């Protein structure tokens, strides 16, 4: 990851001996591991089911929405089974929406960690992104297996494509999370605006419709929204040609690249200004 290399060289400036890239990577791995465990313990504790909440919580969300959509027989403009539609759609929403939610304000509550020289601002965001990614992924996989085993869902036609689409959404979500997280340390507006923004974005994110079902003019506009592409790919992986997916890798990959760069710059900017308590 670009961030690992960046923090690696940053650290080398001050450390007693110039560590090699391998040493830097091992420090990075150790720090992220320690942060992940700390994060899980503080968030879920050791009571009742403990860290299982990590994916039980998104599972409950997805199950609830699936049940709701099934009960109201929601119109989604395709002949895909509603259970499958809800599972792929809502899991994708959780993936891109929870990562920024957890990263906004993350630095404020972890300022004291900066006294440990090996922990950099980026690591704090990275740990939270990884944790959210893990939770959403386990939830999606578990529910898929569950629905497949009870026969509500057919196994995906192309597992690799599902994974590819999923990773694309995660990449976008992670880059967005790091960017917003860093900006939120400098301006409270980010936190205030993110909540309405994420709610409004939800119906437009491709979770509740197939692009194919929209009128042509709406399709052109809706494809400017990056996570629509990932969701379409996930569905194509699941349902094959039945899904009639619309997406454009030549748009969404450069978009995520630029956003990643913006995020890293924002982190760099915040790191230079941050004042630990």
């Amino acid at each position, binding site marked *: 990851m670009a961030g690992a290399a960046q923090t690696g060289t940053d650290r080398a400036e*001050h450390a*007693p001996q110039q560590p090699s890239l391998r040493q830097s990577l091992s*420090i990075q791995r*150790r*720090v992220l*591991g*320690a942060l992940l*465990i*700390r994060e899980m*313990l*503080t968030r879920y*504790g050791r009571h009742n089911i403990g860290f299982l909440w990590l994916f039980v919580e998104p599972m409950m969300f997805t199950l609830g929405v699936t049940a709701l959509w099934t009960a109201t027989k929601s119109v989604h403009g395709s002949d895909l089974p509603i259970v499958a539609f809800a599972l792929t759609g809502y899991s994708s929403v959780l993936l891109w929406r929870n990562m920024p939610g957890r990263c906004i304000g993350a630095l404020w509550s972890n*300022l*004291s*960690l*900066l*006294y*440990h*020289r*090996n*922990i950099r601002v980026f690591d704090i965001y990275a740990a939270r992104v990884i944790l959210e990614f893990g939770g959403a992924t386990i939830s999606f996989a578990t529910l898929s297996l569950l629905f497949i085993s009870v026969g509500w869902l057919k196994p995906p036609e192309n597992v690799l494509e599902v994974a590819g689409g999923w990773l694309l959404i995660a990449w976008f979500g992670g880059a967005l999370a790091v960017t917003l997280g860093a900006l939120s340390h400098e301006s409270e507006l980010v936190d205030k605006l993110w909540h309405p923004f994420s709610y409004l974005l939800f119906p437009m994110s491709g979770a509740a419709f197939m692009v194919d079902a929209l009128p042509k003019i709406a399709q052109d506009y809706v494809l400017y929204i990056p996570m629509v592409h990932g969701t379409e790919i996930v569905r194509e992986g699941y349902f094959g040609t039945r899904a009639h997916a619309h997406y454009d890798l030549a748009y969404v990959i450069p978009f995520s690249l630029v956003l990643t760069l913006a995020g890293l710059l924002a982190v760099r900017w915040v*790191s*230079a200004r*941050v*004042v*630990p*308590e």
Partner: protein
Amino acid sequence: MIRLTDVRKVYRTRFGHNVVLDGIGLEMHMGERLGVLGRNGAGKSTMMRLISGAERPTSGRIERTMSVSWPLAFGGAFQTMLTGVDNIRFISRIYDQDFARNLAFVEEFSELGAYLREPVRTYSSGMRARLAFAISMIIEFDCFLIDEIGAVGDARFHDRCNHELFGKRGDRAMVIISHDAAYVRDHCNRFAVLHKGKLAHYDDFDEAYEDFREHIGLSNRKVSVPALPGHGIAPGRSALIEVSQHRALQDDRFRALVMEGDWRRDARAWAEAAGRYAAALALYPYQRSYWVQHGHVSKEQGLFERAEISYRTACALGEPVQDVAEHLAFVMAQQGLDIDAAPPGRYRKGEVAGQAPGQSDIDLFARAVWLCDPAIGIGDGDRARLLRAHATCDALLAAMIGDPRAAAATRGTQGGEAAGEESGEATGGSEEWIRTLCAVAFAPADLPRMVAAAQAITGMEDAWRHLLAAGGFADWPLAQAALQQAALQQAQTPEFKS
């Protein structure tokens, strides 16, 4: 080696740029222990954070070829939702250390027992300090940053900390900041004073301390009273007492004076210690705990009457009587007196007139009613007599109004003599006295009149007249009766007039 070259740190605030460090330089090697003195808010902690690398300078270079610790005894470094053990595990992972060995060390050193398995948020502040220090010791840094370690824990814990730091790790580099200058003096071999963004270096503690004293305004003859918010009056005597407790301890001048008093007390130089405490109490007459210290050092000198006054004042200002009674009984017995004949007053909230008086009140009133020069003061014999005889501020003031010195003062000012016009000498001390006097004279609800009186009064000569004109002491029945009595007597003896 750690080297800071021309380091500047500027914070952007809502009201412009705040230059905290303005080009400081520093070089540290193994075995050097640097003690940094500086007043509150001088930027000592900012400097620590820059050295530690947790924060970056606005400009300048910071080079490190040694590993540097986080600021020691810094409790924020651990997560309070987690248990002590979880925190140890986290630190061990971050620094790639053997967890089992670290846990054993912390268990042994912190003596927290089963609490180590409980969340840190359930710990007392002393327990947190023990955990924080123990965790700080598990990583072997080359340079330790020590921020206010003297502030927590008991004496035995201090000894153990000092052994770990200065005994076992005496070969390391250290940067120490502390409000306790004696701690810096005893543990450092280099010194620096941070003032107005600049860092000055010294090899000798006394030189450094002398400059530090000057910066906080103790060496200067003209004492500048720090500007207080608003009109600077604490409304009411109760508020005055409560505010004085912490405001005094935040004032660098008060802290330095009592600290110097403590050093001299520890060296058994009782008279000098008493002098420092008295100077500190002159700044904050309603600060209760150092009246007790003043009593102790007076007692050690055999000045039992002096000690009695200080103890009585401490009780009146709210020091628990149980803690002082034993000493008070002793110094009274030494004078052939019985404490039960004149028990000490207790502090209680409510109407000022009914509160127990102390030396602070006697001196306050003497300046207004008797025009008693504060530089000379009134005798301890008078003070002791007044405090033994009068249980309330009201009774005290009435007695002082009935005293011949009050009548003499009235004649003095009415006759237009106005001896010793202190025109060019409107000292800060007198402003403080006016504020204090007004705070005592009016009920807290009377704030507008209190402020009006404070603004009308210019000095000792006209204070009493303005106070009474503005309605001061209106709800002090005994004082009012004494005033009427005094007016009658004055009318009956017209020959003294003009």
